[in-house]
């Protein structure tokens, strides 16, 4: 594995556990939708009302937003901001860090309150942190195993003909 490409992967069971945790959070808060985005800007999961915007673009901008704010935090002497809140007239979003690798975004409107979202997201963050730690630890121990595309050289060549 090349340096700088620390891959990670998650299984359908992981996905099920993540979805259940997020659904519980949405049920408790009445938030519209929850998205998980990894720090390099890739969308991991979406739960709740399907977003009516481009989720890939949203994920990229979320990661950039979080990274830029991390740098701002360091400039003022903090290590990071582990949560961010953006308030709109009708729609608002709350972003929280998970295990320094993933970002949880909760989208909500006036059917709920910031206080409730902030309160309930704490438990969700704890649960997801535990879950992702397991995913990442497993990823590390599996690096000696052949990759997903092992032996697929010919197929890769074919794709680029």
């Amino acid at each position, binding site marked *: 594995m090349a*340096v700088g*490409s620390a891959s990670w992967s*998650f299984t359908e069971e992981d996905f099920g556990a993540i979805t259940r945790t997020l659904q519980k959070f949405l049920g408790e808060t009445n938030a519209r939708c929850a998205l998980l985005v990894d720090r*390099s800007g*890739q969308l991991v999961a979406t739960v709740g009302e399907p977003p009516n915007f481009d989720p890939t673009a949203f994920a990229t901008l979320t990661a*950039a937003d979080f*990274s830029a704010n991390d740098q701002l935090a360091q400039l003022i002497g903090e290590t990071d901001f582990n949560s961010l809140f953006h308030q709109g007239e009708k729609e608002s979003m709350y972003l929280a860090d998970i295990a320094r690798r993933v970002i949880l975004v909760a989208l909500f409107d006036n059917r709920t309150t910031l206080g409730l979202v902030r309160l309930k997201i704490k438990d969700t963050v704890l649960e997801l942190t535990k879950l992702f730690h397991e995913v990442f630890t497993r990823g590390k121990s599996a690096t000696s195993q052949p990759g*997903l595309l*092992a*032996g697929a050289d010919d197929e890769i060549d074919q794709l680029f003909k």
Partner: protein
Amino acid sequence: MSMINYASREINCKIVYYGPGLGGKTTNLEHVYGKVKPDTRGKLISLATETERTLFFDFLPVDLGTIRGFKTRFHLYTVPGQVYYNASRKLILKGVDGIVFVADSQVERMEANLEAMQNLYDNMAEYGYDLTKMPFVIQYNKRDLPNAAPLEELQASMNPGWEVMEPERQKVIADQFRPGENVVEQNADGVWVERAHFFEAVAVTGDGVFDTLKAVSKLVLKTLA
């Protein structure tokens, strides 16, 4: 940092176009956006100033096909080339799987090219990434301009190569993208040297744009094989 999603059967990889200001990084992405089928690409996002200079990044997701039942999604990013924006430039490199360095072939931009290349090495090193061990290609852009430097000169200054230390790699390795040329070979002084893959391009007309993208994508997928 490629991400494999077994639930949606997708492999997601991140490719960053790096290089000096006004070198053609955004133009590369715009050409790809204009040429690929709309159902295989997402929206082109540009965080630019009013004068169309990249402020933070441009972003374009493209699907390049399916391997072993997994959709290969490549997220293409550009960085702001202007020296002033280094803080934001560095952020974009986070989790990168492959790099395209877009060099400006014009003789008078040589210093800017070298400065950007040094900056790339420095920023990668700060993340602990080793550019010589990951998919990395150089694109010499603007080959159509009358003041473009000869390819040999560009190669000598931008891509002199790095010494190959591992004994098992000290052998002639052919360049899969340039028949008759090698990426690893022995210099006259006996030192084994590896160079980055390179392509000539005229991004405004699209020449070489897809050759570059295909090469870096292929190299990225091969790291998973």
